[in-house]
C-alpha cells in the first residue's frame, strides 16, 4: 500500500544541511498496524507528516496505492484525503464551533455523501462509540478521552483505508489511553484498516503488529510484534 524509497528531509541553513530524515525506505502493507517510536527529535512526526502528505520530502519517492505522491496535484491529494486517509491528532483538533455530531459529519460533507446516508453513518458512529447522549455537546464540554473518541469517530466516518495517528493518547490518562488502543486494535483486526501511529509508549506499541524505531532520522530497527 505504501512504499517509501530513500526518503530524505533536511533544512538548509547557511549552507549547512540539518537532516530530519535520512535514507528512509520501507513498505507498509494493507492491514498492518505500525507504530513509529523513538526519542524526541528523531523525526517521527516528520515521517508521519510525509506519509500524510502534509509535508514534502526533499528527496526520494513515495508511492501511495501505486501512485507517485511527489508529482501529485493538490486536487488529487485532496481526493486522497477524502477517500483514503483519516487523521487522529494528539490534541484532538475538533472544530470548536461544531457539535459532536457535526464534527463527525464534516468529512462526509466534503465527500459529497447524500444527507440520508450521512445521517445514518453519523448515527452508526455515535452508537458504536457509545456517545449518542453527547451528540449535541460542543468539544469543550467533553473530557479529553471523549474528545479523542470523537476525533477517531470523525476519522472513521469517511471509511478510510488508513488512519494516521500522531500520539493519539499523548494527552490522555492511562485508562482512557488503553481504551483508545483497544479500539485501534479492533479496527485493525475486524475491518482491516491500516493504522500508523507515532507513540512514545512501549505499551501502546504493543498493540500493533510492527514497530519502526527511528533515531536521528534513520530507521534503526524494524520489528514484528509477536502477539501473545
Amino acid at each position, binding site marked *: 500500500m505504501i512504499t517509501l524509497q530513500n526518503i530524505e528531509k533536511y533544512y538548509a541553513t547557511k549552507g549547512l544541511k540539518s537532516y530530519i530524515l535520512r535514507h528512509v525506505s520501507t513498505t507498509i502493507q494493507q492491514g498492518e498496524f505500525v507504530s513509529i517510536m523513538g526519542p524526541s527529535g528523531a523525526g517521527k512526526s516528520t515521517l508521519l507528516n510525509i506519509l500524510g502528505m502534509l509535508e514534502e520530502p526533499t528527496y526520494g519517492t513515495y508511492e501511495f496505492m501505486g501512485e507517485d505522491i511527489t508529482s501529485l496535484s493538490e486536487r488529487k491529494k485532496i481526493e486522497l484525503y477524502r477517500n483514503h486517509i483519516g487523521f487522529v491528532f494528539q490534541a484532538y483538533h475538533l472544530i470548536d*464551533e461544531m457539535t459532536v455530531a457535526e464534527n463527525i459529519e464534516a468529512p462526509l460533507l466534503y465527500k459529497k455523501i447524500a444527507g440520508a446516508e450521512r445521517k445514518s453513518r453519523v448515527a452508526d458512529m455515535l452508537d458504536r462509540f457509545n456517545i449518542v447522549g453527547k451528540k449535541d455537546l460542543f468539544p469543550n464540554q467533553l473530557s479529553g478521552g471523549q474528545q479523542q473518541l470523537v476525533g477517531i469517530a470523525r476519522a472513521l466516518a469517511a471509511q478510510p483505508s488508513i488512519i494516521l495517528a500522531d500520539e493519539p493518547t499523548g494527552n490522555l490518562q492511562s485508562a482512557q489511553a488503553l481504551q483508545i488502543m483497544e479500539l485501534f486494535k479492533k479496527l485493525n483486526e475486524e475491518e482491516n484498516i491500516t493504522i500508523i501511529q507515532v507513540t512514545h509508549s512501549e505499551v501502546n506499541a504493543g498493540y500493533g503488529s510492527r514497530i519502526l524505531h527511528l533515531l536521528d532520522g534513520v530507521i534503526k530497527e524494524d520489528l514484528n510484534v509477536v502477539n501473545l
Partner: protein
Amino acid sequence: MFKLNLKIALRSLWKNKGYTLINIAGLSIGMASCILIFIFIRYQLSYDQQFARKDRIYRVVSSWKYSGSEEFSGGVPLPLAPAMRNDFAMLDEVAAIQRGRGVITIKDPSGNVRIKTDERTFYVEPQFFKIFDYRWLQGDPQKDLVAPNSVALCEDMAVKLFGDWHKAVGQTINYNNKTDLKVTGVFANVPENSSNPIQIAIAYSGYVNRNMKSWGSVSDASECYILLKEGRNIADLEGPKNAFIKKYYVEKGVGKEGHLFQPLAEVHRDDRYGNSSNNTTGMKEIWGLGIIGVFLMLTACINFINLATAQAVSRSKEVGVRKVMGSRRKQLMVQFLTETITLTIFALIVACAITEAALPGLAGLFREKLSFSLVQQPEILGFMGCMVLFVGFLAGFYPAMVMSGFSPALAIKNKVNVGNSGGAALRKVLVVAQFAITIILITGTLVVLKQMKFMREKPLGFNSSAVAMPYVPGDSLNRLKYDILKTRIENIPGVLSASFCASGPSSGDNTLTNFSYGGTKDADFQVNVKPADLDYFKTFGLQLVAGRALSKSDTIKEYVVNETLLRKLNVVHPEEAIGKMITVGDGHKAAIVGVVKDFNNMNLREAISPILIYSSKNNIGTLAIKMDSHQIPSVMKAVEAIWNSTFPNNVYRSTFMEEDIERYYENERVMGTLFKVFASVIIFIAFIGLFGLISFVATQRTKEMAIRKVLGASTFELVRMLNISFVLMVLIANLVAWPVAYIFISKWLSRYTYRIELSIWPFAAAMAISMLVTLLTVSLRSYRAAKTNPIDALKYE
C-alpha cells in the same frame, strides 16, 4: 452545506462576541451613512425625471460674455419663444412659461371676500403641457388654457380655494385685485421633486408686459422649454441657433448674448441658471457626498479586514483540520465569506434602524421631503443588496484568502503566528489609510466651520441688525399711499428710521445696466443699480466718504456711487467724482453728489460690485424699517396692522435683513453640519477599529508582556511600549493626509472672495485630535493588559 456553513458562521460570531460587536457597530454606522447618502442622491437625481419625454426636453437659457466676466440667466427675452417656434424646424414644441406672484381673492355669492391669499403663479402656454405630461383631472389645456383669463389649478390649490376640486371648474378667482380669472381645469399635484412647482397655471395669452417685443431685456422669471423632435440630436441645433442669435440680436450691447439648450436633468443641478423651485443641487455636491460615503464605507471595511486578519491565527487550527478532512481552499473561502456576509447582513439590519432614526434629521437639514421605504423605492433594496455584497467581498475576501491559505502541517501544530499569518504589514498600511481619511475629514471640518464663523462675523460695511423688510405693492394706485405709510410707520415707538428701496444693501436680487461716466462712451462694465430714498443711508448705517446722501425726490435727480465704481473708472480721489455726470441705460443723466464707503452687496463668495444709488419711486419694492432691537415684537405687530390698513387688498409679507443674509449661506450651513456629522462618524469608526486591533495585539503579546514584567518592566513602560507603534502609524497618517487635505481645502476656499487665511492650526488640531484618540484608546486597553498578573499568562503550555 450552506446551512451548516451558516450555522457555524453564527456560532463563531457568537463565540467572538466582542469582535462581532465592534465589527457590527463600525459597519452598521458606515452603512447607515451610505444608505442616507444614497437616499439623498437618489432624490436629487429624481428631479424632473417623472416625465415621459424627459430625454427630449430642454430649457433655453441665456448668457452674456463681458470682457473678463460672464453672466447667466435661466430666463430668455420675451419674444424668443414665438421666434423659435417660427425658426426651428427640428423642434416639436416650444413653450413659454412666466413665473409671478400675486394676491388671489375669492368672493362668496354675496360679494364678501371669502379668501385672500398671496400665491405664486405661472403664466403658461398650452404647449407646455404637450412637452410635460401633467395628469389632468378635469379639462384639457390644449382647449381650455388658450383663452386669456382662463386658469387651471392643481388639486391641492383647488381644494384650498374651493373645498373640493370637483367644484372648482367654472368658478371665478380674482388675481391682483385686477383681473377675474375663470377656472377651466384641474391637474394632479406636482410632486415635490419638480423644478416647476406649478399650482396655478394662468393662460399665457393674457400675459402683458411692456418688454413683450424687447430682445434687450431678460428676466429670470421668463423661461422657455422646447421639445426636440424624435431621433434628432441637440447638437444639430447649434448652427440654426447661431443664425438665430445673429438674426435677432441686432442692437449691440456691452455683453455678447448667447443661448444654451439645457437638458431637463440639468435644470435642478446647475446653480448658475437657477429655476422656479429656487432649489438647485450641483453635481459637485452630489459627487462630494458620494465620495464621503465611499470613504466611510472604506474605513468600516478596513476595520473589518484588520480585525479578521488579526484573528486569523485563532482560526488556523480549524483550517488545518478541515484541510486534512479534504476541504478545498475554495470551500474554505466560501465558508469564511459566508461568515462575513452574515455579519454584514446583521450590520445592515442595524443600519436600517439607524437610517430610519436619522432620516428626519437629514430631511430637515436639506429641507427636502425624503422617505425611506423599501416597498416604494425598490432601488434602495437593490442598493442595500449591492452594498452587502460589496462590503462582504471587499472586507471578507482578503481575510478569507489569508486564512484558507494556511499550511495544514503548521496550522495543526499551532505554529502559525501573527508574523507569518500575513497581513501584519498590510494591517499597518490600512490603519494608516484609515487615519489619513479621518484626518482629512477633521481638517476639512475645522476649516469649513472657521470659514462660516468668519462669514458670520465679517463686517459687511452696513448694519443689518433689527431691520425688517416688508414688501410694498408696486402698482400706481398703491404707490400714492407710500408717503402716508412711511410717516405712520416712523411714528411707531421703537422705529428708528424707515426707507423705501428696491432691495437691501446686500441682496440676491440685482439689476445690472450699462452706463457712461463723464463723456458719452459707455463704460466697458455694467453697474449694479439700487433705487432707494434719502433715508437709505441712515437706515442701514452706510457711511459716506465724500459728498452727501441723496436728497428727497421721487425720480432720478442725483447719484451716489461706491468706491469700487470709482476704482474701476480709475478715479483716485472720491472728491474728484463729485459733480461729474453719469448717464444710465436709457438716458437718465444726473450728477454724482456722494461717494459711499464700500459695503458687501452680495454673498461673500462674490467681490463688491460697482454700485449706483438713486431715487426712483417707480422701482420700489420694499420698506426697510430699522427698529430698536428691544422692541422688535411690538413694532412688528404695529407695522403689520398699519400695513394691512394701508393696503387692504394685499397680503402682508416681511423678512428680516439678517435672515436674508443668513440664507446666502444655506449651502455652507448644510456643508458644515454634514462635515461635523460625518467627521464624528468616521472618528468613531476609526476609534472602535483601533480598539479592536489593540485588544488583539494585547492578547497576542500577553506572554511577552508577562515575561517583561517578570524581568522588571513597570506598567507604564509596558503601556508605552504598546503605544509607540500606533502613535508612529498615526504620525505617518498625518503626513500623508496633510497635502491631500491642503489641496481639497484650498480648492474649496478659493470659491470665496472673502476667506480665512489657511494656517497651520487646522492641521495641527487634526493631528492633536487623532493623537489623543489613539493614545486614549491604546492606553485604555493596554493598561488592562499590562496590569494582569504574569502568572496567569505564563502558566499556559
